[in-house]
């Protein structure tokens, strides 16, 4: 995923970076840091430290800064809103395990396929034949 990058990168993010670069809009992305080993994870303090280090490094390289940063120390991740060149450099950092576009094209919610209101009362027993797949409902 993401030719030329060691990190696992959401193709939508690459598309957004490319398109934003042409219009100079900032790009939102979320990043997860690499774990030391498959069984270990970074502590919150380590996460904060590494995120700071990476951001400072890229600021020196690109001479620009992110618009906003949120760090999620308990899950070794962070989110950023930054110029596309900044984000693109981030994708190449060895500390980055994966990156995803913050704004996805589709709704993340798994929408129920069916929904209707009912009322709850102390009453007699419910019908014996329960609704099956797409089948009848008692009215």
């Amino acid at each position: 995923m993401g030719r030329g990058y060691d990190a696992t990168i959401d193709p939508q993010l690459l598309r957004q970076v490319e398109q934003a670069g042409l219009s100079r809009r900032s790009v939102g992305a979320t990043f997860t840091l690499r774990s030391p080993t498959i069984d270990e994870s970074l502590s919150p303090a380590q996460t904060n430290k590494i995120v700071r280090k990476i951001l400072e490094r890229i600021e020196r390289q690109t001479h620009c800064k992110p618009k906003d940063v949120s760090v999620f120390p308990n899950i070794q991740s962070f989110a950023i809103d930054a110029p596309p060149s900044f984000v693109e450099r981030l994708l190449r950092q060895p500390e980055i395990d994966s990156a995803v576009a913050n704004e996805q094209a589709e709704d993340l919610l798994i929408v129920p396929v069916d929904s209707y209101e009912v009322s709850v009362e102390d009453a007699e027993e419910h019908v014996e034949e329960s609704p099956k797949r797409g089948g009848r409902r008692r009215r």
Partner: protein
Amino acid sequence: MPDIPEPVATPISEAAIADDLGTFMPSAALGSEVVNVELDATGYAQVLVVLAAGVVRDSSALVESIAPRGRGTRRTAIQSESQLGLVPELAGLERYFTLPAASQDSALANEGLYSALQGVRKKVRTGTPSERRKMLQDAAAAVETEVPKVRLYPNLNVMLGTVDRSGFLGLQSDLRVQEVQAAPQISLIRPTEVAPAEKRSGLTWGLERISVAALWDAGITGSGVLIGHLDTGVDASHPALAGAVTAFAEFDFLGKPVANARPRDSGAHGTHTAGIIAGRKVGNTWFGVAPAASLASAIVIEGGNIVARVLAGMDWAVGLRVRVLNMSLGLRGYTPAFLTLSRLLRGRGVLPVFAVGNEGPGTSRSPGNYAEALSVGACDSGDAVADFSGSQRFARPNDPWVPDLVAPGVAVMSCVPGGRYAMMSGSSMATPHVAGLAALLIQAAPSATPGQIEKAIFDSCTLPIGMHPDRGNRGIPDAVKAFVLLTGSPLPNLSKTAHATPQQGARPVSGGQKSTLRKNSRKHSRKVTSRSLRTKRVPKRTKRS
């Protein structure tokens, strides 16, 4: 948290932009990247092939020459390998396509055949074994299961089909092909209905089906267990959730917490799933699996497509030391981008219980389709996998099939904002049944790891007669069996003295008399012992624990 320097935007020179963009891939190649991800994950990918201009010379004549097949078949006017042969310009292209057993078309075809056979089995009651076998064979022959490897749409100049790695490379190098893209994922849109008021009493069919009441009788109600609930939010003022929501958060576009956030639901989905996990008794009705559990609930879907909110919710929930994380959300298809996160959750002692999706056979959503997730599909009260429930096979040695199991997910009753109630259907409804079950088991064995809880749930599953393992995997869990497997002990017999319930709505227990709840339970509910005798044993799928 240590200070991070306040970021400030600075202008970037045009030359710097051009220089950076020189390393970017052109947009057309990004569609191939999605195909490569799918090929890496499953070995196959559904693709849309855009033919080069002028390859199909007379599309209208071609369409007229292709006659539709008769009723009851899966063929339409513009698809079949033999019909593709009518287009000499495309001769040989069909060899790049394949129809693996794990594809959506195969899954749908097999689903149709399997369902037809199950329908016949139920009707066959008399006759010799050979006569019954002949009836099944005749029924199988009557079902059209042949599906085309590739579909041609001559008016659109595209082809749609499934490829493996060699087929993908072959198409890309064929001069008749302009471009190969990932096929668009089309979701099924079903109507939302509002029906007149309906009466309910006792346990919902879902609670009956996974046998939670027996654990309640033993005093196991989820008390003391905190469950992470990341959804559209929650109406904590609902009577069914009184006292259940002990923490609430919402986050902005970049995942920063909103100050002084008060519990609310940006829709109805979150309140409904919260009710399934930990709903308290309302009137004479129970619909919460763990009616004494606590919820740490956050709005992570408002508008529904901001990833930072989801990560912020995860981070927040982990910080509160939740033991289970219920998420009924995900991205269609497979993306490995959340794999590390899913492993992290387990490493932090959190069991991630994720919905598999509602796009039907041959589909799934990430992160629900990871081996690291406990993925849940939906079944109905007839023990059939819901036709909308996702299922897919992946090219990985550990846990290749998703979902891991199925749980009640059709016509599930729970609470919705404004003091109201609703029936909803979806893998989103099935997932909180399992999250609630996990909470019960955690109360029973507080030091159990996520892997141990998961294994007990998996090993408690039974695949009902008529449920195909490709769709339901391990089948439906059973709370009593899971308790016994986890603790190594039978359910405790409580003393005849009635227990005071510490939390409002927790089911009263009295050892010496039958519960009124059981008296009001549905007539067709099954006992654990009879169910285990009636269901078919199949080899369990193994999973890394």
